[in-house]
């Protein structure tokens, strides 16, 4: 088990930068996800760590070992990096049965027959495939094939495991089940995992930390909680979960930061928390608030008022749209007073972020 360090890692194909200057330390035993929309550079970064793509600049360390450095002309080929990899389409060899697939890394290392059998059976039981050794891939379901791929990566006791969207070909229910299993296996054996996904729920559910990438650049690195509650920019806020963006103007009055909505002149200015506005405290901002952080109250209890334009009952929550001047705010209410379409309501903002 090892940490992985990326220093100034970049990759470009011709004029196109697909990965731009990433610095990152993935700690030993950590579960870290590369999250982002397609084309953000997450898979390329993973393939550089695996050794399938050569960086344009920068260095990669696995443990204390420098495995890739453009400057020092070092490039350790994939087969010598001792990383386990699970591919999106499983890459289970169709001409080998389950046992042979999983035993292959040990065969390469010329492990003795006894030990090989023991280790293969151990990982097969870990991924719940005991009894399936003699089956061929075409006799397995997608989920089972993915377990074979997982077992094959685990059996070599890699320094780090790389998972490239491993669950995206599975159906929703199985995907959720496998999330817990992968997380559980990781906890038990403590292997360092780098996990690539475009599914934010998957990343949130499994990761210790998430690296959010967009347009080849790091947008934010942090725990799932950090990303959800303290997004560093508008892209992060928008990508993770649901959020409302409203334009506001902030002016200082008697030492208090007062915000007003240009789209709704009749709404009286309200005070915003100065720590959210940073140094340049006056001017136009984007007011970002998650739907569950907007509370609907009776019109008498708040000076900010809007009108209910849509209301959908979703069982555990009520999903409202409230018109505030020309803009519409999405509100998710799980408790409290119920309001009707067309009714004027008061709004209370509980937790929000301002972006310049």
């Amino acid at each position, binding site marked *: 088990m090892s940490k992985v360090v990326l220093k100034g890692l970049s990759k470009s194909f011709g004029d196109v930068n697909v990965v731009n200057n990433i610095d990152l330390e993935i700690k030993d035993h950590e579960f870290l996800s590369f999250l982002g929309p397609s084309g953000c550079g997450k898979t390329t970064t993973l393939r550089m760590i*695996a*050794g*399938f793509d050569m960086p344009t600049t920068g260095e990669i360390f696995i443990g204390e070992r420098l495995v890739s450095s453009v400057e020092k002309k070092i490039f350790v*080929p*994939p*087969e*010598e*990096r*001792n*990383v*386990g*990899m699970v*591919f*999106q*389409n499983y*890459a289970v*060899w*169709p*001409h080998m049965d389950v046992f042979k697939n999983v035993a*292959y*890394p040990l065969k*390469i*290392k010329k492990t003795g027959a006894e030990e090989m059998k023991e280790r293969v059976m151990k990982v097969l039981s870990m991924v719940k495939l005991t009894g399936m050794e003699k089956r061929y891939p075409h006799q397995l379901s997608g989920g089972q094939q993915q377990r074979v*791929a997982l077992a*094959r*990566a685990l059996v*070599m006791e890699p320094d780090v495991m*790389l998972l490239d969207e491993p669950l995206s*070909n599975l159906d929703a229910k199985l995907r959720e089940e496998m999330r817990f299993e992968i997380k559980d296996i990781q906890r038990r054996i403590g292997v360092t995992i780098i996990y690539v996904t475009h599914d934010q729920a998957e990343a949130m559910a499994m990761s210790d930390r998430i690296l959010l990438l967009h347009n080849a650049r790091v947008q934010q690195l942090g725990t799932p909680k950090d990303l959800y509650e303290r997004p560093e920019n508008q892209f992060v806020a928008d990508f993770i979960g649901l959020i409302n963006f409203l334009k506001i103007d902030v002016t200082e009055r008697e030492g208090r930061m007062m915000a007003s909505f240009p789209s709704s002149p009749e709404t009286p200015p309200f005070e915003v928390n100065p720590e959210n506005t940073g140094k340049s405290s006056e001017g136009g901002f984007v007011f970002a608030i998650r739907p569950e952080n907007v509370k609907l109250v009776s019109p008498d209890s708040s000076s900010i008022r809007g009108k209910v334009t849509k209301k959908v009952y979703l069982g555990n929550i009520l999903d409202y749209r409230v018109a505030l001047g020309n803009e519409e705010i999405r509100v998710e209410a799980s408790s409290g007073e119920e309001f009707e379409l067309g009714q004027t309501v008061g709004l209370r903002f509980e937790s929000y972020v301002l972006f310049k």
Partner: protein
Amino acid sequence: MLQRKIKADPFILGGTFVVIAILVVFPLTLLFLNSFKFDGAYTLQNYATVFQAKRNYTALFNSLKLGLFTSLFSVLLGAPLAWLVTRTNLPFAKLFRTLFILPYMIPPFIGAIAWSQLLNRRNGYINRLIQSIFGIEGYVFNVNTMPGLIWVMTLYLYPFVFITVAGALERMDPTLEEAARTCGSKTMKIMRDITLPLVAPSIAGGALLVFASSIANFGIPALVGMQGRVFVLTTMIYSYMHSGGFNGIATASALSIMLMVISVGALLINNFYLKKKQYTLISGKSMRPKTLDLGAWKIPCLIVALVVVFITVIMPFFSIGLTSLLDAWGADITWENLTFRNYRYILFEYGLTKDALKNSFLLAISAATICMVLGSLIAYISVKTKIRGRKALETIAQIPYTIPGTVVAIAMILAWSGNYGVNLYNTFWILLFAYVAHYVAFAVRTTSASLEQIHTSLEEAARISGGSWFTSLKDIVVPLIRPGLVAGWFLIFMPTLRELTMSILLWGPRTVTIGVAVFEMQEAGYVQISAAFATLLLLIVIAGNLLVKWLTRGKVGI
């Protein structure tokens, strides 16, 4: 809804079944029965006769030998070249990919003529070159032998292996190899453990195709083998038919059945066994497999590739072109000995070649058009209707293509030479029947592939709008599958234009074809004019191919 479709046009659809019965079922059944018929009774006598004569089982043995060695050498040549072109950084890989398929386009009997000119024991160009360099008498190479036959056959059939293996290598999911790499495998070991086992079924499939094609081939063994008294099944059947006689055709029938069993057997193994083993290797992501850096091997590999192109394409083209310009064959090659007279002769003076051009174009255009109409109807019935027996119809229509042309021709002679009321022997029609029967499979395949992509609802929408079955076919289906129809037409036009195997058994005094004319001139020793005619045919084939490529925007053609 179904009922309505059938009721609407039972005439056209039912007619298709009748045509296929007349064209395919009737002749092939007769052939089968005739192989058992001796002196008016059904016995195994013909098969016994076949095995009593040494020359017959020598021919059988030669066919098997030719098939096996040609497949073996085609694999040894085609598979490494496929790997080189798809998986390494060989310079000009894309160009080589086209050049390696080129021999597939050359009519095999033209290849045979070229190699007869090059390796002929008396005055082959290469033998003469060696004689003049080393100052020796006598010959070094003699093409009119079994090894010569295998050599020429391999050069024209190896593209089958090359195409199937290159396709498999290109489609293979690169992560299958990457996974082995993360497991600690080196390049050579990955080749042995992963790549080779995964393409093995494709290699075997290509080899079986080569096997079936080489034993069904007539042009090469006829032009190269017969002169050296090396007979295979196809040429043996030809000589039985040539020498005539009532028992000649009976023996030929029995030999035909044997030829058919061997070649159909090979194709059946390919279809039922290997197709299942061909793993689904297509990846979800569109990633190209990584190419291997050849390093110091780059130049040697490039040289090998160039030598292959030189031997398979440049040398035969050059030889035929040169011969076609010679005034006197066998004399020294000097400026005085070069002339365009041969071309003037075949184009404007010689009746045989002028007739051959006219007949072949007429036959190829008619055959391609009839095949497309018939084939589209069969494909339509099979894909778009629920008529009982539709799959049987499609299968039966495909049978004649899997059967060697020689066998189809014998069946046509049995059916249409007057024994059953209709005598088409020596006419244009018997050639046309044979061409249509043999090539209608192409039309069925290309159109059913296009038809499968048209959702039934498109037709249903036309019917709901008030169109009849025929109008919806005309206004909706045909325009949508037009590219497939055009491609299919040319796929039939091209090989029928240069057809030899069936034509040589079916032609008559007034129905000489291009293939037959080249063959007869070559056999008669008119080496230069046959070369000129062959060159003309090559130019037509190349022009046709470019035209198809342009028409189908590169989807069909080489």
